[in-house]
């Protein structure tokens, strides 16, 4: 509950500036329920909540479960590849091949659709976008909840796929294989279709929220860069996802009713499917990476205590990547019998995307120049991101260059490249964001030592897993192979060993975070001295986020924040009016029923 002195200062602030928006103060952590609730009331207070933070936390639990599932499938893939011949799990070669095909398909589909697309926008974006605006919630809280419920329904369809005959089409559902295989393509595509709507809802909500709910003083170029990234992502989600939905409906029509769209036996064209699919799925790559870049643009300046360098260039580069991302889908099809002219044009457009990506890396580096670099856990992840994104981005040059792509297309080189971008970059950025905002989300500090050890293990494990795959690819190892030539065994076993290190690293990171919920030190309101608005409320925030709308300042000026050892965090030298005392009454610990 809100203390007397704090209420007094609030009233004072309102009296001094009546134009400030006042939210109803509740004074209770958004995680806690009022006393006296029954178990089922508590459950429904979460399941049907309109609070963007609770929805974000539920999304976080959901995507993390999906990540665990997808990670187990990845482990099955890597273990199956320990030997060059199929059959670590099965005596029969055909069964082993089927098993491998199912595992890599499910790994790809679960990771892409259930985990990585919703991960940053729907979990972290949902929690922090309104708070960065100093707002109480997103523009359409009910739509936000509907988006999460759709995600759950989509996940249920995936579970049905798993429990029936599985899926062996590859996550891309290429026709005509996907219309002829015996596995549960309909359930899986139905799941992806529904998840697509979940994604559209989130995107639409964020576009409207950013456009209409920015507080007075927050012009477009005073927004935190995280919002620029999320906004660019949201535009792609709204514009590209319907194409995927339509494509999958067409696929279902063909499979269920025999309408010839993609199958040449029925008069269709299989390459048309690839155009449709990549028209969504290439922009989807930017749905995944842009929010990751957005997090890095927040984490690096805060933990370097330096204003971000080249704000406008980073902001524009996000928009540029989002727009150019729509024009490069043909580079997935350089060997697909697409015309020479089309290939040349798509190659040229692909190279244009490399420039804004390079600009971001140079700007992040320059931000650290003459800073005071705190090697906290989120910063360690951000540094790992820079290294791995550099590798991921640079290896894209081999694939954008037409002549070299022909050799490397559909080999392990491509597998390594996109894991460097998707996992080595997006996932690492997600972890950077998770560790950065964890104190705010749950009001608890984790062990920095163990957090950094986990980060180091993840870094080593990731690179051991995926760097050998570049070499496998250049030596001509095709992807999606359940077996391989004896020469490749060493590199494959190295890769599988990396998976084990990676698994230990992730488990440790999860343990560090979960342990902090129960035994962690209470988090201060602003542990890193960040200047964005979400740090101006309590940790964890109340249901209304702010008792009173905070003042909007520059999101990257840290001079006003001074470390206070008593607080264990930073306090503003000239505090906002409502923060009269630095020992703000803290809400109770997170819910542990």
């Amino acid at each position, binding site marked *: 509950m809100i203390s007397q002195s704090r209420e007094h200062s609030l009233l004072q602030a309102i009296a001094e500036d009546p134009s400030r928006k006042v939210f109803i103060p509740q004074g209770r952590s958004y995680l806690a329920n009022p006393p006296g609730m029954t178990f089922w009331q508590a459950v429904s207070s979460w399941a049907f909540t309109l609070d963007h933070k609770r929805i974000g936390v539920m999304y976080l639990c959901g995507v993390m479960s999906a990540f665990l599932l997808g990670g187990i499938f990845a482990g099955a893939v890597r273990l199956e590849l320990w030997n060059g011949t199929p059959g670590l799990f099965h005596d029969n070669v055909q069964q082993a091949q089927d098993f491998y095909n199912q595992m890599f398909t499910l790994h790809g589909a679960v990771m892409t659709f259930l985990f990585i697309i919703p991960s940053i926008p729907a979990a972290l974006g949902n929690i922090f976008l309104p708070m960065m605006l100093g707002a109480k919630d997103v523009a359409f809280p009910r739509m936000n909840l509907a988006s999460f419920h759709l995600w759950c329904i989509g996940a249920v369809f995936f579970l049905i796929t798993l429990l029936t005959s599985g899926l062996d089409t590859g996550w891309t559902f290429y026709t005509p294989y996907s219309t002829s295989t015996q596995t549960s393509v309909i359930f899986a595509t139905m799941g992806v279709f529904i998840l697509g709507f979940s994604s559209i809802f989130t995107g639409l909500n964020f576009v409207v929220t950013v456009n209409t709910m920015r507080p007075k003083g927050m012009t477009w170029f005073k927004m935190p860069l995280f919002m620029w990234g999320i906004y660019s992502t949201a535009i792609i989600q709204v514009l590209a996802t319907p194409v995927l939905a339509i494509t999958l409906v067409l696929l279902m029509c063909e499979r269920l009713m025999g309408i010839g769209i993609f199958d040449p036996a029925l008069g269709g064209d299989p390459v048309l499917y690839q155009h449709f699919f990549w028209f969504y799925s290439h922009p989807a790559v930017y749905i995944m990476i842009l929010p990751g870049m957005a997090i890095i643009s927040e984490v690096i300046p805060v933990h370097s205590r330096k204003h971000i360098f080249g704000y406008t260039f980073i902001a524009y580069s996000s928009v540029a990547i989002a727009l150019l991302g729509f024009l490069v889908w043909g580079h997935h099809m350089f060997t697909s019998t697409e015309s020479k002219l089309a290939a040349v044009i798509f190659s040229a457009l692909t190279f244009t995307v490399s420039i804004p990506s390079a600009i971001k890396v140079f700007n992040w580096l320059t931000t650290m120049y003459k800073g005071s*670099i705190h090697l906290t856990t989120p910063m360690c992840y951000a*540094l790992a991101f820079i290294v791995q994104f550099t590798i991921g981005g640079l290896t894209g*040059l081999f694939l954008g260059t037409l002549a070299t792509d022909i050799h490397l297309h559909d080999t392990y080189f491509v597998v390594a490249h996109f894991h460097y971008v998707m996992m080595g970059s997006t996932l690492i950025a997600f972890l950077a964001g998770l560790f950065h905002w964890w104190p705010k989300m749950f009001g608890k500090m984790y062990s920095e030592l163990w957090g950094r050890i986990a980060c180091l293990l993840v870094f080593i494990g990731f690179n051991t897993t995926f760097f050998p795959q570049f070499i496998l690819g250049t030596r001509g190892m095709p992807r999606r192979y359940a077996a391989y030539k004896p020469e490749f065994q060493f590199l494959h076993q190295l890769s599988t060993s990396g998976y084990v290190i990676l698994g230990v690293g992730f488990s440790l990171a999860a343990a560090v975070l979960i342990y902090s919920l129960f035994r962690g030190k209470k988090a201060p309101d602003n542990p890193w001295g960040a200047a964005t608005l979400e740090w101006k409320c309590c940790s964890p925030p109340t249901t209304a986020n702010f008792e009173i709308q905070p003042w909007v300042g520059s999101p990257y000026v840290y001079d006003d924040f001074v470390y206070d050892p008593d607080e264990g965090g930073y306090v503003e030298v000239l505090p906002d009016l409502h923060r009269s005392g630095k020992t703000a009454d803290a809400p109770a610990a997170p819910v542990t029923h």
Partner: protein
Amino acid sequence: MSPVSPMQIPLASFGTFDQFRDAASTGAAAIDTLYFWILGICAFFFFLIVAVLVAFIARYYARPGHVEQHTPHHDNRLEALWSIIPSFIVVALFWYGVLFYLDLRTPPENAYEIQVVAKKWNWSFMYPNGVVDPNLHVPADRDVRLVMSSDDVLHSLYVPAFRVKMDVVPGRYSELWFNATTPTESFDPAIDPSTTGADENGYDLFCTEYCGQGHSAMIAKVVVHKSGTFETWLAEAARIDPTSSPAELGEKIWKQRGCSQCHSVDGKASTGPTWQGTYGTEQKTDKGTVKVDENYIRESILNPMAQIRDGFKGVMPSYQGQLKDAEIAAVIYYMKKLSAEADSVPATWEDAGGVPGQEEGEGSAEGVDTSPGDGLDAGEPIPAEEQTPADKPDSEEAAAEKMDVEEPKTGEQPETDDAETATES
């Protein structure tokens, strides 16, 4: 092709660190050069970025007494510089990428043409004289153009040693060309291509577009024949010995046309039912019980989805238009031979009423031009009769199966030998 097996020394393949397989086509050198240029550029930028990162961390990490200093929040000249320099680099990469790509995608005129049919999960290479082989045989130092189509789903033909790749799409033809420079040292068709080391026993030819269960076993070999010996191979491959037995042809079709991928002949169930002891039995299918007789087998080959045996998935592609009637008959003879009715199988083609597709006693490829087009360096075209000696001894065919490609045949075939001399001169 390393002399030491990497299986014995795990670090061997890593220690030598040959980035690519040995290049074996005319186009490969340019691509490799471009690859190493990009590698150099990437290494430069990667080490630059990491060096700056490490230097900044070492110099500016938070420690007692260290405070951050204000620097400008933006610098348009710097931003322009690091936008424009990479732009020049990527324009150069794009340009050379396009140049070599256009080479890679524009087949020269008069290239020797081979038809390729991909199906789950094998390759068929069809030569102008009607020969169908599961491995790709090509002459060295000659432009070869593949015209490819798929019978079922997407496949992709990839020969890493040649640095070429192209999808094989059902319902349309795709094309691919290369000029192989390094002849294969030796080739034994009896060795399963998925069990050899990389580029051993012929260059690897992979399917790189995921096509289902047997995708990773859809591997063939490219056999590059030394100049002049390709025609010999082609003539040999075209010949059916009239004194051999139909069941032997059936066995050859089983091996070469992809049947063996899914149908065993030792009684083990695989993707498809075994052929051993199946002929003449009663089997349950999704349409009821059926007796496995000539008509059922014929239907299963031409229209596999009509009746699907219980316990198996309907994944077999149709062979409609790809096997001649006599070849289907040979397959049926072979299945009979594997069953209780083995005694009823005719011992020779004469007993079976003649060699399929040819008059009795004549060579199979009579009148078919086996010379690889008119762009051949050799002076004179080879008369068809000379290439296909009809009266070769029985053992010749078996010898031709396991052949040493680099060693031209001598002695026994005077006519062919003359043709070779003419080609090489």
